[in-house]
Each structure stands twice: as C-alpha cells, then as structure tokens.
C-alpha cells in the first residue's frame, strides 16, 4: 500500500511517517503543497493524507488541481479548523474524509484503511463476521454466541458490528459514535462508555470469549479473551 503524506509540520510528519511505516505502508512525504501535488500527480498512491494549511499551495488547492487531472486517489484531509463550512468545502473539493487536529493516530489509521477499502470497492464475500465464539450476520441482523441468540438493540448491533469489523484494533470514541449515530458531534466520554458497558455485560452473560477493552484516553479494542484470564 502506498501512502502520500503532505504535512508541513516536521515533527508531525516524522511521527506519522514512522507510524504508517510500522503499519506496513510505503510512505512518501511532502512538506508543502507544490511538492505534494507533484508527487500526487506523478506517482500512483492508494491514499493521500493531506494537511489543509500548507505553504505555497493550500490543501484545497492541491486537491482541486489533483482532481482536475482526473486522479481519483482517495484523499483524507487533516485540518486544524473545526468548522462545519470548512468540512463542507473540503468534502466538496473532492476530499473523501475529514479529520480535525488534534487527532488520535489510531483513528487516522482506521479512516485511511476504510477509505482504501471503499476505493478498491471489493464486495464483501460474506455478510458474516465472527471472533472466537461470537458470530454476527449483519445482512440478517442476527448475532449469537455459541448458537445462543444475543438480543441486541439496533444501536448496540451497529456498535458490535463496527468493533467486529476492526478486531484487535484501537477504535476511537468518535469513530464508534460516527458509525452508530449519524450526528456529527461529540457527546463526551460518558455516553459511549455506558453503551459499551451495556454491550460488554450482554456479551458476558452469554459467556462470549471476546472482550471489549477500554483504553483510557484512546478508545476501545475488541479482542479474543485470554484463556488464562477466565
């Protein structure tokens, strides 16, 4: 997977370069808009992570120029501006996703992954997801643990589905929130924590061999339960 990172702040650029490389991406970096546009047009990338405020050419200009050449590489915009109109202009200019600084790397990683998946547009082979003894069939809206039906409310089902789609990965609160509710706002830690607690309880009641870890300040992670923990 080839990733182009256009970010003017050296420390952040180095950090993201390292972090994405560790995830197995081949990363090209650019420090300003011109260089970014040059790299984006000359080479094929699977995804471009583009800062909005850049020297020489700003992110929106780079994006517009790139789209004018006919390139459809998915672009994720990073911005320090948290304004609805900025988000709208960013997405209108051809951006595929928008993330506001400061962000969690785990969230950026999942968003990048989702964009690549969406872009390659593979039809999923099955509508079933499973981890350990937990199975979820989202086409039929059914979830069970060892063939015992897990009764879930619609939002809990969506929550579990999102976690199952990203097993062993850190999923941030905002990502979870976005996947379950269509509202764009952050309700704070408590609300989602309570939902997760409820889901966790239902899973435990049926002795599911999975657990949802809460990693404070970062997010949640769905993992197989350690055998020695039980």
């Amino acid at each position: 997977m080839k990733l182009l990172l256009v970010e003017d702040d050296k420390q952040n650029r180095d950090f993201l370069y390292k972090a994405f490389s560790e995830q197995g991406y081949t990363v090209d970096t650019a420090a300003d808009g011109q260089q970014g546009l040059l790299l984006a047009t000359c080479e094929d990338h699977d995804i471009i992570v583009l800062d909005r405020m850049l020297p020489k050419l700003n992110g929106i200009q780079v994006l517009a120029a790139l789209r004018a050449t006919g390139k459809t590489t998915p672009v994720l915009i990073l911005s320090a501006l948290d304004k609805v109109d900025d988000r709208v202009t960013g997405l209108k200019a051809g951006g595929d996703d928008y993330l506001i600084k400061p962000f969690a790397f785990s969230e950026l990683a999942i968003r990048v992954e989702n964009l690549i998946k969406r872009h390659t547009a593979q039809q999923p082979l099955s509508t079933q997801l499973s981890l350990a003894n937990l199975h979820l069939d989202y086409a039929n809206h059914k979830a069970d643990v060892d063939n015992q039906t897990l009764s879930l409310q619609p939002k809990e089902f969506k929550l579990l589905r999102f976690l199952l789609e990203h097993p062993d990965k850190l999923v941030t609160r905002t990502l979870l929130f976005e996947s379950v509710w269509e509202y764009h706002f952050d309700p704070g830690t408590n609300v989602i924590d309570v939902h997760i607690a409820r889901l966790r309880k239902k899973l435990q009641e049926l002795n599911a061999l999975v657990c949802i870890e809460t990693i404070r300040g970062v997010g949640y992670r769905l993992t197989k339960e350690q055998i020695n923990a039980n």
Partner: protein
Amino acid sequence: MPIKDSAWRQIDPRSSSVWRLTLGFAVIMSVMLVLTVVLIYQLLLGEQNRQVERRLTAEKLRIEGLANEFSSSSFYSQLDVFRNESELLLFWHSDGEQSQQLSFLPEDIPALPKTIVFPVLDTQRGQIRLLTTGIVHTSHGDIVLATATENLQQLIIEFKTVAFWACLISLLLTGLFGYIFARRHLRRVHYFNSTAEKVQNGDLSARISHKQKGDEFDKLGAHINTMLDAVEDNFALVQGITDNIAHDLKTPLTRLRLNLEQQAAHFPEIGLEIEQLDTIINTFDAMLKLTRLEHGKFPLNLQRIDCQLLAEDLIDMLQPSADCNKQQIKLYSTAPLILQGDKNLLFQALFNLLDNAIKYAGIDACISITIDASSLSISDDGSGVEKAQLSQLTKRFYRGDPARQYEGFGLGLATVKAICDRHNLLLDLTSNSGGFCATITDNSD
C-alpha cells in the same frame, strides 16, 4: 392573511412615521384650503348677496315713504310708474285689484329686510327665474318686492361645485403624492432595515448603497457603512486571531497527543493525561463554537426535521446513562413537530437539555419529553432550580452546582440558547417544586 396585513401596515399611520407626517400634512392642507374657499366666498359672492339685500331695503324705505305720502289710488299709480322704470319687480294685490305676472307666489314670504329665494315661471318672458323676494307692509296693503338673482345663484352654485371638486382633488392629490413620497422614503427605510437584518444574521459584508452627496438618508447610510466597516474589520481581526490560535495551538497539541498516544501503548496510565488534554481541547472548541454561533458566523445546514425522530435518537443515545441513575425517560407526542433547522445543532441542543436532566434530576427521577404542534419540552420531577438562578443558567460558564461535582464547562445551556436563537426558536426555562422544565417553542408563525 399576510398580504392583507402588509397592505394594511403600509397605510397604518402607527407603523410609519413618514406616512404619519404625510397624513398630518394633508390635514393641515385641507384646513387651509377650506379657510381660503370660505374667505373667497365671503369676499366675492357674499358681498353681492348683501348688495341685493341693501337695494331691496332701500326700495322698501322708498315704498313706505310713498305709502305714507299718498292716498291709496295715487300710491298704486305711483307704483305702476315705479314698476315700469325700475328693474325691480313689484307685485301687490289690493281690494279688487290684482297684479299678478307670475305663475305663483309662495305664501310665506317674510317681511323685509328678511328675504326668500324661490324659482318661478315668468309668464311675460316665458322663462324660469330665481327671485329674491320680501314683503313691505304699507297702510295700503302688502307690496311684494322681488329681484331676479338667478345669475348670482347660478354663480354661487358653480362656485360651490368648483370649490368642492377643487378640495376633493387637491385632497386626493395630497394623499396620492403623500403615499408616493412616503413609499419612496419607506422603501429606503426598509432597505436600511433589511441591510441591518442581513448583518444581524451574520452577513457582515452587507452594505447600504448611497449617493456621495445626498440627503440625510444618504448620510445615515454612509455612517452605517463606516460603522459596519469597523465592525467587519474587528470581526475579521478576531476571526483571524481565533483561526491562528486554532492553527498555532493545534499543531503542537497534535504533536503532544500523538506522542502521548504512542506512549500510552506501553504505559496505560498516560491515558489519564490524554483525557485531560481532550478536555482542554473540547472546552476550547466548545467556546469557539459558541462564539461563532452567537455572532451568526456559524452557517446552518437547513433541512426539514421531524422532532419525533430526533427525540427517539436522543433517547436511544442517553437511555443507558439514565438507566445508570435508575431514571425513566418517557416520550409523549400529541402532534408532529416539523422544524426547519440544522440537524446536528438541534440534536446537540436537545442532547444538552436531556443530559442536564439526567445529571441533575437525581436518582429514580422520571424525565418526560413532550412534543406538540409548536413546542418540545424536556421536564423532570427532580428538585428543580431556584427561581433566582433561572435567568443565570444560560450564561457562559455559569454552573448550577457551586461544588462543580459534575463534569462539564458550564457552556451547555449557553450553547442551547445560542442554537435556539440562531433558529428563531424560543427557549423557556421554568422550575417549580415539581421539577425543572425546558421548553423550546417554534414561534415562526
């Protein structure tokens, strides 16, 4: 009936000072006109009338003199002569002698100097004449004196007609020109008002176009524009500052957060620091958002919103939190409430209200969301808030609990208020022994 209403508003003197001025002007005009007409009438036609009366009185004196001087027969022969040489008409009927040239004489002719005017057919001339007549009582019998005044009467009638039409037309013209004048001015005032409204709604670039050297309105427009320029400059300055702060602050915050996150993988206790950092960032963002909302700088993404769906999503989201406090949330809906608004903002407003109810209503409380055709209210049966605090609640950083035992920045209700104001919705907070109630009312129509 908005059209009828606005038409009435245009001519309702209470709603426009210019129109009031015009009407007052029209009244003064018509009073002066009436006075002038009366004066002209008195000076020209009244004088002629009086001349006729003076002449009749003079004749009366002469006839009375004759009657005293002569015997009956010679008096009448004198009158005969008199009748032939004078323009005046004389009639009498003494014993046996009738002198009638006219078709009829009314019965109630008054004694001179009083007179009466009546139309009569002149048989000698074969035409209808208007006669001003009066009676002279003499020792030889009553003599009727008459003079033809049809020309004068005609003149008076014509004068009255002309005066009436002149008054009417000038009044209509005053009204018409006044209306046009008032409308021209009102249009300029309306233009000023609509520009001011645009500015109020966040379009700071709205300006009033005016002539360089014009009347008071142009000067006013120029002043308003200068003022708006200053406001816009200041606003851009503030905007620039906040944007720069946002950028300059967020770049290092991003570094900090990314580093902390990396370390948290090895030292989970760092998660607490990240949460603190997120709190700082959230407070900062909430303040920026509130400021933008209050200054109309927050563009709305308007759409039709069914409050029922909004409330259901809201309950979905907060039911688990309420369960933690053993609270019940009930939704009552008597009629659908459809609003035109920004979905995310309205949801946030309702979220803040319900979240507050869950936080403050206490264990075992029952929270009701009630929707009717024009309002949505969220009420609880908790202990409520003191009356004195109600008006303070929507202020920034005001906290109902002085001990600050709950998380939050005191921006929740201020944000709700700002969102409601931005949507022209009315936020009403009430509290009594039965609990606290927040009502959002749609007062658009």
